[in-house]
């Protein structure tokens, strides 16, 4: 066991945190006074940023246009792109 979760597991973790942030975001848009939801959102955002940083270290940037660090080589162009992952069957 090398201490890093596998790529699919790490990606799922990011998808779960990111999705939680989206659902909280939509809720906050119609309930902007809800401080508890806001605290939740901030906590999830922080965890998401951490998990993305780990994934990006291993697999390259997840965001374009300056939102992710570029690294030592331009891995943004690497495959797989998201719909290509979907067609990899065991």
């Amino acid at each position, binding site marked *: 066991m090398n201490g890093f979760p596998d790529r699919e597991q790490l*990606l799922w973790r990011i998808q779960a945190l990111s999705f939680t942030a989206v659902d909280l975001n939509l809720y906050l848009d119609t309930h902007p006074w809800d401080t508890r939801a806001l605290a939740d959102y901030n906590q999830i955002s922080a965890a998401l940023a951490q998990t993305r940083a780990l994934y990006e270290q291993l697999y390259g940037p997840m965001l374009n246009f300056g939102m992710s660090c570029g690294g030592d080589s331009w891995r943004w162009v690497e495959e797989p792109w998201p719909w290509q992952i*979907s*067609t990899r*069957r065991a």
Partner: protein
Amino acid sequence: MWIYDKKLQFPVRVSGPNPRLAKSVITQYGGPDGELAASLRYLTQRYTMPTGRSIATLTDIGTEELAHMEIVAALVYGLLVDAPISEIKAAGLDGYYADHDKALYFVSAEGVPWTAAYIQSKGDPITDLHENMAAEQKARSTYEYLINLSDDPEVTNVLRWLREREIVHFQRFGETLNHVQEYLSARKVF
């Protein structure tokens, strides 16, 4: 402006090539009640919404619909990519294949090309919000019909997920309607 997040919002897998199913699923890509229509509808209506809150909701849901459009694209791509020509013909996709090979194109289940006639941006925010609530119900129903048609449990799982998002969106548009109606009626008191 928009940036791109290099992941699907929800993971997509297919059990195998299935052009027949792809022919139906593609309607949520380029059809009247699909994700492109939803996304462009909300993103174009948002310019004339009366409050920051309503603008935020339309912007955020419109952006999420682009992510759903990508999920539908991933489904259709996965169902077509390894399909032999014989199956494509058997599915009645000869015409689509002739025009597009296995590429993604904006058509409905019957091959009708996407049109801006599918969306309205009426300017009146109450009108627009009702349009959006109806759109979410139409999308929900379409996902239910696709679930009825699907013979691939992996695809069904994704369709169920997309359907649930429509229900959440309906709720948010409803809350936005409440807020806009209150805002507009308060402004009439002078």
